[in-house]
């Protein structure tokens, strides 16, 4: 897949991750201590990273991709913890629709971000590469 297509797909998936977190913050978790704030931070972070992935500077785009990977992995780990013993006193009793959607988006985003980073870095130093 072309680097640009990978980048757009990555941006869309990261935006989806943030959108699900924001929707859950508004609909459910705004009153929940710690978890509510974390969901809002996730949404804000995802929105900022999406903008950075879509802007013109290649170095900033790479940085955004490198930032989006821990965001998605962190979210996945948090979901796993919440499905188990709970995190910050919060437990997910079952796989609600938004949880499933977030997991799918995060699982898809990580390899796409890695592929975009790999393709972007492989072009570093190549004749005519963007810097």
């Amino acid at each position, binding site marked *: 897949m072309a680097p640009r297509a990978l980048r757009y797909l990555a941006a869309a998936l990261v935006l989806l991750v943030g959108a699900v977190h924001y929707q859950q913050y508004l*609909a*459910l*978790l*705004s*009153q*929940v*201590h710690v978890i509510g704030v974390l969901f809002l931070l996730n949404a804000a972070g995802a929105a900022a990273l999406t903008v950075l992935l879509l802007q013109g500077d290649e170095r900033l785009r790479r940085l955004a991709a490198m930032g989006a990977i821990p965001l998605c992995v962190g979210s996945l780990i948090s979901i796993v913890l919440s499905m188990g013993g*709970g995190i910050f*006193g*919060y*437990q*997910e*009793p*079952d796989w*609600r629709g938004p949880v499933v959607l977030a997991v799918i988006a995060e699982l898809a985003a990580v390899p796409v971000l890695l592929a975009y980073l790999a393709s972007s870095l492989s072009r570093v130093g190549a004749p005519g590469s963007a810097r």
Partner: protein
Amino acid sequence: MRTALTGAVVAALAVGVSGLALAKDSPSGSQGAASGAAVKAMKVDIQNFKYKPQTVEIKAGTKVSFTNGDTAKHTATSQPQGKFDSGDISKGQTKKVTFKTPGTFRYYCVYHAFMTGSVKVDP
């Protein structure tokens, strides 16, 4: 006319079945010995991960209804566990617990430990 009559019968059956389903949603948790006191009712709403009201004071024998207004599943479970447990309460669902023994009973949500409440049962 016949279609309308069939529709009315189907609607009546649907109402009846849903009524039965609601009636089946009997108290899942109760504690203490039965008393002869008249059974009263008290409502506790669960909204935004909070029990409202957080503390209730009731007479022994009163039935407390916990209604979940959140999308997330909740419970009303005695703390420590073992005295009563509403079981899972899904969105829009109501579970009832009858408090027959005087005392103060603290409870929480097993899924969201920061959600706490208490029931003070007077003789």
